[in-house]
C-alpha cells in the first residue's frame, strides 16, 4: 500500500485553510474514498456532501487540483504517484463548511425559468412524438445538477453575476424544455432579460467539465442564443412578424 498526501480545505466562508493529511491509499480508490478515509482516521468533523458514489446524484462536486470534478469519479491513479492532491469546495458558491458549498442560489435560478408548457393533447392518452425529434431535449435531460458547470463558468465564478445570469446548468434546463417537440412556451424574452444569456461569451468551460458530456455550449446555449437573435436582433425576422400580424 502506498501513502499519499491530501490538502483539504477546512473552515467556512472564505476564511478556511488547506490542511494536510497523509493516508494509506489502495488501488482503484477515488478522491471521495480518500476523503472518507481522512474522515475515518484523522478528521471525523470533516464535512463532505455525497450520495450515490456512482456519478449520478451530482452531490460530491468539488475542485481537485483546481479543476471542478465529481470526487466520486476522479481516480487517484489519474495523478502522478507521490503527487499531493488538493481538494477544495466549489469556488463559485459560498462555503458552508469544509467541502460543502451552499448551492441554494442555483435553485432560485431554476425557479425563474418559464415552466414547461405542452400543447393540447394529441389523443386522449397523451401526446405523439417521434424518437428522432426528442433526442435534442433528451441530451439535456442527462443533467445531474452537479453544478460543476456553474462553478467553472467565469460569469459566476469570477464576475459574480449570480443575480443577472442563470448559468449553464439552467440554460441546459431551459433548452430541455424549449427543444421538446410538444412545448409551446416562448422563452426568448426570459433568456434575454432575467436569464441573462448575453453574459455568456461561449468560451465553453462548462462543456469541458460536464461529467455527463452534454455539449452545453453547442447544443444548449448557442441554439438558445440564436432563438434570442430571431426575436430581438434580426431586423428581417421582425419585419416578417410585423407583416404576418397585419
Amino acid at each position: 500500500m502506498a501513502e499519499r498526501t491530501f490538502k483539504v480545505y477546512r473552515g467556512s466562508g472564505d476564511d478556511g485553510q488547506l490542511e494536510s493529511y497523509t493516508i494509506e491509499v489502495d488501488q482503484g480508490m477515488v478522491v471521495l474514498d480518500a476523503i472518507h478515509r481522512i474522515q475515518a482516521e484523522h478528521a471525523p468533523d470533516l464535512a463532505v456532501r455525497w450520495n450515490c458514489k456512482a456519478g449520478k446524484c451530482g452531490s460530491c462536486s468539488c475542485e481537485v487540483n483546481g479543476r471542478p470534478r465529481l470526487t466520486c469519479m476522479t481516480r487517484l491513479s489519474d495523478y502522478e504517484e507521490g503527487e499531493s492532491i488538493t481538494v477544495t469546495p466549489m469556488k463559485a458558491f459560498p462555503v458552508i463548511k469544509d467541502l460543502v458549498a451552499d448551492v441554494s442560489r442555483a435553485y432560485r435560478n431554476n425557479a425563474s425559468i418559464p415552466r414547461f408548457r405542452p400543447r393540447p393533447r394529441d389523443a386522449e392518452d397523451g401526446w405523439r412524438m417521434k424518437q428522432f425529434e426528442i433526442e435534442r431535449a433528451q441530451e439535456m435531460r442527462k443533467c445531474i445538477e452537479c453544478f460543476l458547470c456553474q462553478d467553472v463558468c467565469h460569469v459566476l465564478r469570477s464576475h459574480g453575476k449570480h443575480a443577472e445570469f442563470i448559468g449553464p446548468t439552467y440554460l441546459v434546463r431551459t433548452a430541455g424544455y424549449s427543444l421538446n417537440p410538444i412545448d409551446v412556451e416562448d422563452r426568448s424574452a426570459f433568456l434575454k432579460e432575467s436569464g441573462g444569456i448575453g453574459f455568456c461569451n461561449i468560451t465553453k468551460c462548462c462543456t469541458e467539465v460536464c461529467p455527463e458530456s452534454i455539449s452545453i455550449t453547442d447544443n444548449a446555449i448557442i441554439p438558445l442564443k440564436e432563438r434570442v437573435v430571431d426575436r430581438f436582433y434580426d431586423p428581417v425576422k421582425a419585419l416578417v412578424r410585423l407583416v404576418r400580424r397585419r
Partner: protein
Amino acid sequence: MESSVAVRDRGFGKTLRRDRWWVPPVSVALGLGLFGGYATWAVLQGGNYFADPYLSPLYSPCIAASCPEQIRLLGIEWWPFSPAILMMGVILGFRGTCYYYRKAYYRAYLLDPPACAVGEFRGDRYAGETRLPWVLQNLHRYFLYASIVIWLFLTYDTIHGFFFEDGFGVGVGSIVLLINLVLLSGYWFGCHSLRHLIGGDVDCYSCALAGKARHKAWKGVSWFNKRHMGWAWFSLVFVCMTDLYIRLVAMRVFEDPRLF
C-alpha cells in the same frame, strides 16, 4: 497550512490548477496573430494576387477597376486602394463574429477567461455580450448571408483556375484553389447560425413544413458543426497558404507546375 488567499482568491491568474493551462491561450494568440496578420498584410498589399488563371482567394471577387481584366467584375473606378479591402469587411465580419473565433479571442486576447478555472481581471464590470460592441455579435447570420455571395464567386474563381490560355488543364495552383474551396465550404457548413436557420429553430419536426427534410439538413450541418473548430483553423491557414502560393508564382519566384 497554506493561506486561505490562494484558495478562494479571485484575482487575475489565480488558480490551483497545476497543468500548463497557459499553453492553449498562448498558442491561439500566436496562431491567430500570425495568420490573421498575414491575411491583413496580404489584403492591404494590393499586388501580386493574380497569376493567370489563379486569383488569390483573399481577392475574390475582384471588383475594382484595377483588377486584371481576366477576372475583373464591376470594375469600380473610384476605388484607389487594394481591391481586396472592398470584400474584407464581409470576411472579417464573418470570421470575427463566428462562435468559434469568439471563444478563441475572448480567451486568448481578452483573457476572459484565460483558461477554465483561472482568475481574471474586471470583477463585476463584466457585461459579456449584453452591451456594445459585443452585442453586435448577434448579427453573425447577416455575415453568413453575405458570405454566400463570396462563396459563389470563389467557386467561379476556382473553376477559372482550371482554364488556361490553351484551354482546360490542371496545375498545382488549380488543386490548391480546389482544396481551399473545400476547406472554406466545410467551415461554412458548420456555422452555428446556419445550423439554427436550416432546422435548429424547429421544435416539432413532425408538425413543421418539410420538417423531416429540415431535420436531415440539420443533422448534416451538425456533423460539420461538431468539427467547426478544426475547419475554422484549417481553412484559415490554407487560405493564407493559397494566397502565398499564388503570390510567389505571380512574383516569378517559381513556376506553377502544370500537371496536365
